């Protein structure tokens, strides 16, 4: 018998096949299991995600990953009461595999389907870690594809995008600087590691969109491509002069610039909108410089900061099960079975 409080979430927006089960309780959403299969190793040699390789991997991983999740949670598929799936944003081919699988499960089990937004999922996953959101929270979602500031009045029905990056996402900027410094793909974690042993004040790199003239139009937007160019110039000038590159200091100074801009703008937005809880999500929130600075500055500003553990920051089924649970909890209508995936789904659209 389907149990309305049991939600299965499927995520396939990029290179991770994620399947998770969430249980809805009155006062919390409980994560029962989070199973992930990744094709990341197949992409590394190309220096980026190959959509067709990811799509093929999703097809092969789908049924085994569902079975693994069910097995680990000791749940029978027939007990699942609703299916949630990433409807976008993401890569079309990978999204399509997940959506088709979710629809087939919904039809086969005779339960509702809920298409949800991947980026909002990066914030919603924290409801399973630190408890249901208070009435109003600010969410900073930072990943390989996004750097967005969201005002969340209701995670399932009312999300406002205050700002986003005008060029590179934070993770993308780290990856590009990583390439510049000759680090393996993805460069983000390597820069993080190097930066821990460098001097963040060694080089003064620019802080994009923080000038007074940008406050009117871009107070809540980000820009990291100028920073990336500044790092490139600095490194090339050194190389041309035949000098050694102080990798640790470059990494630390670059990481400090990114963390500074992200936290300063986010805290300013919290003040302006009188929000006292901040959630940080997305793969880039694994970054230790960001975590440290956000924790310190939020404490100073009297803002409660919630950052889920790293394994829930990267792409996974848990984030989709969490958002699906929020949708089911509110009794929202099911998505139509002919729902189309949307590679550029707007961040203000939580459900389909």
């Amino acid at each position, binding site marked *: 018998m389907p149990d309305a409080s049991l939600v299965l979430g499927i995520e396939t*927006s*990029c290179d991770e096949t994620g399947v998770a089960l969430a249980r809805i309780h009155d006062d919390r959403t409980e994560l029962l299991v989070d199973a992930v299969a990744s094709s990341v190793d197949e*992409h590394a040699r*190309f*220096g*980026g*995600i*190959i*959509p*067709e*390789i990811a*799509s*093929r991997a*999703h*097809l092969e991983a*789908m*049924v085994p990953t*569902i*079975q693994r999740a069910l097995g680990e949670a000791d749940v029978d*598929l027939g007990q699942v009461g609703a299916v949630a799936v990433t409807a976008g*944003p*993401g*890569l*079309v*081919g990978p999204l*399509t*595999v997940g*959506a*088709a*699988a979710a*629809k*087939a*499960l*919904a*039809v*086969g*089990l*005779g339960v509702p389907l809920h298409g949800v937004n991947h*980026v909002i999922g990066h914030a919603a996953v924290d409801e399973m870690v630190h408890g249901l959101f208070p009435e109003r929270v600010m969410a900073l979602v930072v990943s*390989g*594809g*996004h750097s*967005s500031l969201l005002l969340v009045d209701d995670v399932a029905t009312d999300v406002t995008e205050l700002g*986003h*990056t*005008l*060029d590179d*996402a934070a993770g*993308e900027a780290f990856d590009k600087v990583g390439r510049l410094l000759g680090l393996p793909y993805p460069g983000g974690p390597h820069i993080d590691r190097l930066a821990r042993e460098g001097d963040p004040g060694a080089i003064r790199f620019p802080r994009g969109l923080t000038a007074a003239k940008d406050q009117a139009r871009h107070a809540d*937007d980000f820009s990291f491509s100028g920073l990336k160019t500044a790092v490139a110039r600095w490194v090339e000038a050194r190389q041309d002069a035949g000098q050694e590159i102080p990798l640790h200091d470059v990494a630390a100074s670059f990481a400090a610039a990114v963390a500074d801009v992200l936290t300063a703008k986010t805290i300013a937005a919290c003040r302006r909108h009188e929000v006292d809880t901040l959630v940080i999500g997305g793969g880039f929130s694994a970054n230790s410089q960001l975590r440290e600075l956000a924790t310190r500055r939020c404490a100073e500003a009297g803002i409660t900061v919630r950052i889920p553990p790293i394994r829930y920051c990267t792409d996974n089924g848990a984030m989709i099960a969490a958002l699906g649970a929020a949708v089911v909890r509110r009794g929202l209508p099911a998505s139509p*079975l*002919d*729902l*189309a*995936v949307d*590679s*550029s*789904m*707007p*961040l203000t659209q939580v459900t389909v």
Partner: protein
Amino acid sequence: MPLLALDTSADICVSLVADPRPGPWLASTLGTLASRRVVEQRRHAELLAPMIEEVLGEAEVDRRDLTAVVVGTGPAPFTGLRAGLVTARTLALALGVPVHGVCSLEAVAAQALTDLDAAAEVLVVTDARRRELYAARYRRRDPATPRGELPEVVALDGPLVDSAVALQERGAAQGATVVGAGAALHPEHLAGDPEVVVDPAVLAVLALRRAERGESMPTEPLYLRRPDVTPSAGRKRVSG
């Protein structure tokens, strides 16, 4: 009790087929209870699930009474094919029934051979896009199968993907009847009957017989092409 058969190698098509079905495997009485076909190059993942609900509703069959799911494994363009395969696999998982894969070109061949001579051969061609065709050549497995009865088939060549010119040059169609939607695309090189297309009921009959013989029918996709390995350019940014 019925089984569900679907194919997304070209059109999107779904049929509910009686199982077991009475009498010989006459092509005229495949036991289709309800079917849907949409001629679409894209949107397979959008339309397929509603079409499944529709055939179940029309035939008034409870999904829990389905005995198996049968799916065409291509060859076909990637995204649509995968939508069909992942749908079949997960639907079967949800229903707790087996899933069987059958090469989509074999269904076209079996249909075409039904009304041809015992020794006849067919070249099945379908649209592979990029100015190429998917192609495979077949004959009856058992020449004694009477005309009018859907035969089991054996592949003599293919399935492969190539241009119509190349297929013509190597005589792929020599001595064979050309059938399949690809026959309308490059008639100067390969002409034939483009009206013979995959009927999911034929997939179902082939699968039922193969199951009776204890053959395994994996649902591995026949992509026949390597992935294009250009990394995704813009990653997945929403805007800016």
